[in-house]
């Protein structure tokens, strides 16, 4: 009796495992298809039957993309923008979060609820006035125009994320440091930040990816080919009449690889960051 139950239990587990594998395959299939297509030569029209592994694989698409001056420039631009955004967001949001977590000050509640409500508004709602402001400040068509807007857009969410984390830190360390005469900047940099590496890593990685993938604002403000970022460069590979999909996906892969790498190395933090935000609600 007992062994029959256990066998049934194991069978169910195996069935579940199989289902998950199939599901994972379905989830991965489009990505694998993209990888395969990147190696297809002259892929203007999908072949019949579609090939996940091309019959005549070639590196030509990667060659074309990587030797295109504009594409390489776009890659570099994206690196600059994403790294700067990530660094600035992490620094500024953690400072703001610390203020929320450890201090009382006039306007705290107002600011808190304002930021909360504004988080609900889709970022594209701001694009028109942001564009006008950028025009007036002569920041259109410049990478700084991108960075500043990205950083501003990431303030609210990351501030809340980190605030929740900071609040959960035990106060004793900070209080004893205060009593020893340390000022708040020292406490912040020497105690709070080092203890918060998981949350900070989450913020850094997410804001990097956000800036890396952002398309709409970049599309709106950038016209010069020297300052275009990666998503725009990829979109430009789409032709008016016919599109070389192999080229598009080879370009896409070069953009996706940093994402995947970051993801593999920082997987723990992704999950932690998400769930921390969820539980704080």
């Amino acid at each position, binding site marked *: 009796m007992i062994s029959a139950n256990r066998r049934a239990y194991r069978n169910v587990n195996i069935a579940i495992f199989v289902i998950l594998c199939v599901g994972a395959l379905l989830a991965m299939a489009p990505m694998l298809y993209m990888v395969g297509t990147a190696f297809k030569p002259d892929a203007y029209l999908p072949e*019949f039957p579609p090939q996940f592994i091309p019959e005549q694989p070639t590196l030509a698409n990667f060659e074309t993309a990587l030797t295109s001056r504009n594409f390489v420039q776009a890659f570099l631009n994206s690196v600059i923008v994403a790294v700067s955004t990530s660094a600035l967001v992490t620094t500024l949001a953690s400072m703001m979060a610390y203020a929320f977590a450890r201090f009382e000050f006039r306007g705290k509640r107002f600011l808190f609820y304002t930021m909360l409500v504004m988080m609900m508004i889709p970022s*594209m709602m701001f694009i028109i006035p942001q564009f006008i402001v950028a025009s007036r400040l002569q920041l259109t068509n410049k990478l700084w125009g991108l960075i500043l*807007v990205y950083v501003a857009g990431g303030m609210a969410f990351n501030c809340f994320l980190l605030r929740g984390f900071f609040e959960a830190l035990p106060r004793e360390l900070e209080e004893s440091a205060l009593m020893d005469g340390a000022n708040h900047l020292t406490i912040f940099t020497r105690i709070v930040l080092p203890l918060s590496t998981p949350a900070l890593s989450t913020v850094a990685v997410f804001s990097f990816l956000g800036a890396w993938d952002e398309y709409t604002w970049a599309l709106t403000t950038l016209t010069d080919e020297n300052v275009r970022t990666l998503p725009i460069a990829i979109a430009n590979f789409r032709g008016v009449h016919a599109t070389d999909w192999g080229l598009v996906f080879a370009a896409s892969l070069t953009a996706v690889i940093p994402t995947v790498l970051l993801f593999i190395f920082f997987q723990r933090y992704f999950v932690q960051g998400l769930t921390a935000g969820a539980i704080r609600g």
Partner: protein
Amino acid sequence: MNPGTAVTRQPLLKRVNTLLRYSPGHRWYVPYLFLLPGLTLYILWMLYPLVYELYISFFDWNIMPGQVSEFVGLENYREIFADSNFWFALRNTALYALVTVIGQIVLGLAVALLVHRVIFARRVFRAIYYLPVVTSWVVVAFLFLYMFNAQAGGLINYLLVSVFHVLPEPVAWLGNPDTAWVAIDALGIWKGVGWSMVLFLAALQGIPVELYEAAAIDGADEKQQFLHITLPLIRATLLFVTVMLVIGGFNVFISVYLMTGGGPLHRTEVVLSYMYNRAFGRLRFGYGASLSYVLAAIIVTINFVQMRLFRRPTIEY
């Protein structure tokens, strides 16, 4: 130092204390110093634009430098209410949100429950399902564009026609509004399932196993356990996921912009693509600004309603 002055300084500080309501142990300006850099950027690029946008919405705004804009008062808002294209786009967006949110929650929860059951390779599954979430919208939009190609060799057409024989002949997915929505919704769900799955998984892991065991002893079967233990205890996560997914659903833009451009015949237009087109395509920035405000109001309202509906006291166990 003169003791007299030290004594008189104290009450003054105390008054400043109370005024600024700060906790003792630091100077009054310390929290503001921490806030200042981030807040400055936030005000310049988020708060100020939001207010400025309201101002713009009362004009027929001329974007070119040195040009005059005509004040039109509430005309833009009046036009919105009469604009059937806008309401159609809103309907499209709402339907998209409905379909994709339900899809992501149901599938996300289902997968989370399954992954929760297996110990082996849990991290791997989590990673695989989550990968689409972190992939760029631009890349996946092109990917689905290619997969839903109208030709017989398009992946979806091939599977449905030649492999599973569900359809008699290849479909021009993006050439037809109804079928185009299938592609757009599929993309939305596929890209988001991993996100909700990860959150549900974490929530599930927070439920003590003893509860299930106790229920099993009392005679409850799987379904009852799910309904009476699992669901209630992940309520907080469920609410959070729903709210975020709805926000995300209304945020849809890139997939529509790159896959159909709002067509054919503007039938796949969503609110954001409509606003973008009116502002940057037709150069009607004033109208676009008023659209943004109306939309923002709608979305915030929806979120508040959601939060009200879902709120119940936390369950003690």
